[in-house]
Structures are given as C-alpha cells and as structure tokens.
C-alpha cells in the first residue's frame, strides 16, 4: 500500500489507534485457524463515522478491508487474505442501552459476549448464544460468524437474537436494518443475512439484540451407554416427550478414555458414549423433566445415570465435557477441530464414520457432539511440522466433510466457512445457490473490497 494512502487511513482514527509496524501487524495476521496473511495497516475505530470514513477511503483507492473482533474464529474468517486494512472493533466496546422492559440491548460490535452477560445478570436477564469463546469473543464476531454454543439446542443461535443493526456499506454509507421489535416484517430481513456473512457484505457498527429472562433453576444429569445408537434414540425420545433440554452433550469412547487418562474422573472406560443433559426453567418443571428423562434413558438401556443434586455436583458432571478440548490439545503439539453437522438421528452413524476415517488414516480422533442439534466436533491432535501426519489429517477432514454431506448434513454448524472450508462448499451447495450468493455480494460490494478471498 502506498505511503500517502496509509497516511490518509491513519488520519481517520489518529496515530494512537493505527498500527503500521511489521511486528504489530503480524499480530493481526491470524485467528485460531492455520492460515495467515499480513495486513498493511490495522485501524481501531471508535465510531460509525470513523468506520464510514475508512470505507470511503478504501473505496476510493480500492483497498481490501477485513473486519476483526477478538480473533477467536476457527476458520480464518478475520484473516486478511488479500492484505489491505484490518478494521479491529475491539475498542468499540460500549453497551449503548440495556432495556429489559422491552427485552432488548443495543451494543457496539466490540462488546465481549461475557461482559454483556455480566451487564444483564443484575436485571435477571441473559443473552443465550454461548460460544466456547464467549469470555473473549465479541458480539460483532459472534454475529458475523452466526455463533452457536451449548445452550442453542433450546434457545437457538445468534441469528435468532439479532433484531437490527447499523452497518457501514462498502461505499462508506451507513444504513440501518431491522428495529427493536421482535415482530418486524417491514421489508427484507437483512439483519439475518448479515449473520454468518463473515464481514463480506458490510461492517456492523451497532447491533440490537433480543435478551431473555434468566431461568429460575438448572438441573443436570450424566448418562452413559454401551451402544451409540441408544444415545441417539434417547435424544429423540426425550425431545419427542416434549422436553427441550438446554444442552445434550455427547462424548464418545475415545474422548472419555482420553479424559480418564489425564484427569481420572471415574468415567467408565468401556462405555460407547455418554450424554450430559441439562434442563432449565421453573424448579417444579425441571424436577418433572428430570424424572421423565431418567425414564427415557432407562428405556434405552442406560448403563449408568448420575443426577446432580447440588451446584458442586453439577460442576463435577460438567468437568469431563469442559476439560475435553484441553485434554486433546495436550496430546500433541497442535490440535484441529471442525464442526460438521448432521440430522440428529444420524449422529451415531456419523461418529462411526469418523472412527473409520481416523482408523484408515492412522489418526487419533475424539468426538464431542452437541447431540441435541447434531453439531459435532471431531478433535484431531497433530503436529504441523510432521508433513505426513498433517497431510493425513487434511485428508481425513476432507472425508469427514464428504461423509457429513452424504448424510444430509452440512459443513459447519457454528464456526463458519472462512478460508478453512471454502474449498468444500460444493459438497453441500449446488452451483446455482453459490452463484446466488455471488450475485448478492456483487450487488453490495462490486469492487470486492470487504473480506475478499473467502467463501464468496
């Protein structure tokens, strides 16, 4: 990028909110995915006006612009594949309005998900999407990736909570979509189109989110099974009985054994899988739901059932699930995780597919699954410097994507496409559907300035 153009960009936000030295720039070349690309400039705007001025300059000189929150994406979404300017929203982190009477909040994109939860808790409210990165990831990033989380089974994903937004378009013009109303069919629901758009359509500078009251109580139980099919049958029987748990987390045999190896929690080593189930709501209702769940899992040959009666017991049951990622991360220098999603009834078949693929490529792989919504996380410990091992991991994941597609599943349930899965889009979308996305992209960003080099 030419020096005079850099200067013009830097004048928008001032020197102390611009980065141009290599050492600093290199810290914005990555997220949690393996690919990297250096930006030419990093800017930290604080207002919509500044974002607008940045985009006007970018349009004038045809400079690529990639938005970034906290950089916890696992698919390369905020990596500036075509270089140019990274617009980092982390300092634009004000909660503009909390209105629990009308059940909405208005936030700037850099607000951290966990900070929003802490701001809502005193009012007895919460914002349901809870990605694993919630203590660091920003609302802007959550919306751009349409983030999910454990409790999305009951409450839905980010897109279900976005009521409206202010967006700066490629031209630099600022526009508003949606409103503060839960019911709103005034024109296209464009806010929803922005959920999962990964910064390719515009830069959000303000988001209005729906919030909901905190449940009175939560109850947790953990069940182990000797046959994988019984887990899936239990999941559909429980939901079929009219109970929608907040979470139904499945750990496969490999994962339970890896956790036992490192933490010794007393998980049964021979079980085929376990389900961690949590319900929330009014206390009496939760108690009844727990009873019904116990009955359903018994009908499906549960090998062992543990019901938490106290908060510490609840935490103890969650320990296995919470430690799973760390356990796998410590098995080898690197770890790769994906988030293919299949219809709920196909979860056991998909797990068997993953096991077979891992065996074929001589890899260790564990599976964590949000069993209630079919969203699965195969975990593969690896070593990027070991070329042969890395190649086998890449091959295995390609086959996992193909297997998910064959079962009527999809590439990503909550992480997004980014750079990681762009090559596999054709597995789950036909040519015309991909073309339709390009048509939209070209209409709003004809010069392909917004996060170029990604899935569209």
């Amino acid at each position: 990028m030419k020096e005079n153009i850099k200067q013009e960009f830097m004048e928008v936000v001032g020197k102390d909110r611009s980065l141009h030295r290599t050492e600093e720039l290199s810290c914005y070349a990555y997220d949690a995915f393996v690919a990297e690309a250096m930006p030419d400039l990093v800017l930290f705007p604080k207002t919509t006006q500044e974002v607008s001025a940045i985009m006007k300059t970018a349009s004038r000189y045809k400079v690529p612009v990639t938005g970034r929150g906290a950089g916890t994406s696992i698919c390369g979404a905020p990596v500036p594949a075509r270089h140019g300017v990274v617009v980092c929203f982390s300092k634009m982190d004000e909660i503009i309005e909390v209105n629990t009477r009308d059940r909405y909040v208005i936030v700037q994109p850099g607000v951290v998900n966990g900070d929003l939860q802490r701001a809502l808790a005193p009012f007895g409210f919460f914002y349901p999407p809870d990605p694993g990165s919630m203590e660091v990831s920003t609302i802007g990033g959550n919306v751009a990736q349409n983030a999910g989380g454990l409790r999305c089974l009951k409450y839905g994903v980010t897109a279900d909570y976005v009521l409206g937004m202010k967006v700066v378009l490629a031209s630099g013009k600022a526009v508003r979509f949606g409103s503060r109303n839960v019911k709103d069919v005034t024109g296209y629901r464009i806010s929803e189109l922005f959920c999962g758009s990964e910064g390719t359509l515009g830069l959000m500078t303000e988001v209005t989110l729906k919030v909901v009251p905190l449940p009175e109580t939560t109850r947790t139980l953990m069940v182990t099974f000797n046959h994988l099919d019984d887990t899936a049958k239990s999941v559909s029987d429980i939901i079929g009985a009219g109970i929608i748990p907040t979470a139904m987390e499945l750990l496969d045999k490999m994962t339970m054994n890896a956790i036992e190896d490192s933490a010794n929690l007393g998980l049964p080593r021979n079980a085929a899988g376990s389900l961690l189930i949590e319900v929330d709501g009014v206390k009496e209702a939760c108690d009844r739901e727990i009873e019904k769940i116990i009955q359903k899992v018994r009908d499906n040959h549960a090998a062992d059932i543990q019901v938490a009666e106290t908060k510490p017991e609840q935490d103890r049951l969650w320990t296995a699930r919470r430690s799973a990622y760390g356990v796998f991360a410590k098995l080898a220098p690197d770890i790769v995780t994906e988030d293919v999603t299949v219809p709920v009834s196909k979860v056991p078949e998909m797990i068997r597919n993953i096991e077979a693929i891992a065996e074929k490529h001589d890899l260790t792989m564990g599976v964590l699954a949000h069993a209630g919504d079919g969203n699965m996380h195969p975990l593969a410990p690896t070593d990027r410097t070991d070329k042969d091992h890395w190649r086998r991991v890449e091959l295995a994941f390609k086959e996992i994507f193909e297997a998910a597609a064959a079962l009527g599943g999809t590439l990503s349930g909550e992480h997004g496409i980014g750079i990681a899965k762009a090559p596999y889009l054709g597995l789950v979308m036909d040519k015309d559907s991909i073309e339709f996305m390009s048509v939209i992209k070209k209409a709003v960003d004809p010069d392909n300035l917004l996060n170029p080099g990604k899935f569209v």
Partner: protein
Amino acid sequence: MSRTTLQNCGRCGLCLSACPVYKVLKEEHASPRARLKLIQAYKNKTLPTSPVLQELVSKCLMCGRCAAMCPSGINHYGKFMEMRREMAAAHGDKIEIRSLVFMLAREYRLRAAAGVARIGRGLLPASFQKKSRLGNIPLDRFPRFPGKPLRETLPEEIPPQGTERGTVVYFTGCATNHLFADTGHASVRVLTAMGYRVRIPEGQTCCALPMLFHGAADQAGNSIQTNIQALGAAEDDPILVDCATCGAALKKEYPLLCDTLHLDSDVVAGIAARVSHITPFVLDHMDELDFPAADTALKVTSHTPCHRKHGFGGEDVVARLLKQTPGVDYRPAPDAEECCGGGGTFFYEYPEISKKMVDKKVASARTTGADIWVTDCPVCRINLAGNLDGESSMRVIHPLELIDMQLGRS
C-alpha cells in the same frame, strides 16, 4: 508424530480473557497469544530482533494468568522470561531498570541504595514529594524506608516463647528487609508466639525473580547461588516466605534453572520441597495461637497477589485465615482475585495501563467498607497503598501484621 515436541500455541485466544493488560488495552498485540506468536517468528528467523519487538514482549505483568488457563498447557512464563533475556541482551533496558537489576544483584548495593533513599527522602521537600510520581504512584504515598534494614535489627536466631515446637527458617526477601520491616517483626512475633524458633540465615539475598523478569540471567545466577548456600545448610526445617514472588522463585523457578545455571538439582529440590508461604503455615497452626477477646471487630478486605494464585499455586488462603481470625469482620471484594497492575516494575514502566487496573481495585475495596486491606505481596502493597487517595483511612498491610495486631502485641 513425535511426542517429544513442545506444545504449540493453537491460537484459540482464550488467554486474552485472562490477560489483565489485554483487558485494559483491547489490543491483540498486547496479548499473551501475540507474544507467543512474536517469539515464534523471532525463533524461526522470520522476524528480526528490534526495539519494537522488545517492547511488545515486555508489556506484560508476568502474572502467569495465561499459563494457568491455557488449554494446551503452554509455559508462557518460561518462554517470556527467555525472550526478555534475549531482548535485554540485544537492546539493553531502560536505565532505571538496569540500575534496579544492578542494585538487586548484590546485597551490599541494595543496602546502600536503601540508605541513600532514606536520606534522599528526608531531604526532599514535602510539596515536591506530593507532586512527583514514580510510575503511577505519587512519591509521598511511596512506603517510607525504615530506620534500619530488618535483618540488621534482629539476631540470626530468635528463641520461641513458651514450649518449643520446632524451628523454621525465614527467607525475608528484599522488600521485607528494606521496605516493610514491620511485616518481618510481626512475622517473627507470630511465629515465636506459636512456639517456633526462627532462624534468619545470614547471607540470604534477593530471590532473583525480578532480575530474571528483566532478562538479567547472569546477575540472577549469582543471587540464586548465594541463596542456595544460605538455605541449603539448614537441614529439614521448613523455609517460610512472606512474599509470593520469593515463594514462586524458590519453589518453581530455581528447579527449572538447574541445568542453565549448573545447580545441584538435589539441593535445589530439597529447598523447593521445604518452602511454604507463611500465610498457609500460620493458618495450619491457628490453634497454637491464643487470641485475647476482642470487643470490636476490624473490618478487613483482601487482595490476592497473582504470584500466589498463579505462580505459587494454591487457593486463596488469606480469605480462610481472615474468616478464622477472632475479631475480624471479613468483607470480601468481588474482584479480590483480579490483578492490581503492580507487576514488579510494570506500574513504573506502564503507568497508564496500571492506573486503570488499580483504580478499579481501589473503588471496589472501598465499597466493602473495610478499614484494612491485606495482601501478601510487597509490590501489590506498594501499588494499592500508593493509589489510595490522601483522605482514605484504609491501610494496606500484610496478613501477618493483622494476626500480630489481633494477638494484641503491637
């Protein structure tokens, strides 16, 4: 796939939520993840050494929170320390930091410096002291140097009161010796009241951790050797520290440095096994203390030093100690475990960042209504006390001073 390779940073970014500096600045280039990335780029020779690189790697409190929560189990602490050493060797350090390292490296220099500071402070007009700042702290709120260093006012061995229960070795650290002699006297009174003979070995010196943080490995090596000699001879008696950083040094850092510094690993492991923090030691022996009945309760809140929680390990024993001490109305602050921004010399090098952190702590401690704020780290103590405003009646002391007060001895 080789199993011996070191863990790589998976760049998950979870450490950002633990990093006090990131939380203030909201800048990736000031995060633990970025520091690891920069260190890796430097090692791979894709990024040459530079003053900018040094600054990015050093803008860190060395609080250890990132390492404590890393899912991949990366030793950020060791990597940062090594990189700081390389950067200091390549680019030097600020003159003030170099002087600090020079001073800490030899006990006699430290003594001389404390003496000069004592006199200097006496000569400075009060109005000047009020206006001038050392980092984020106004000079007149800096602790006063005691008349004489602690160890010069105490014999090498102090006999117990009443029945003798055993002997403990007291490693006083620089801060208690030169700045907070009151903590030292209180500790000795509490330990002897419990029936312990207290040995304060001559020849002990700075634990060397501050020097290691500033990349001064050679100077640190000398001090470490000196301390091993002073402590190694003392048989099996427990070694007590009143500073979490000294504790982390003796217990965790010395054993890691055996190869580099050619230390006798058996002796070092022996010392490490004997080291305890004085606060849990007293907590374990509370029934050996006889507290007089108190008619009014002292309102007390606490601050947990990062090096006790994340460097030295263990739960928040101060909270338990306060709950068990008669005549104490313990009022926990919701953010008692958050970093205060002291971080060794961090408050001096990055006063704007540090100030934001400490102001939050002070505001929250105030809301508890406590009159006494206890913490068992000298730097936290300087930083917290230095940032209370003039009108505040709150005092910051070491928990042992509180125990001593409650025993009715001072």
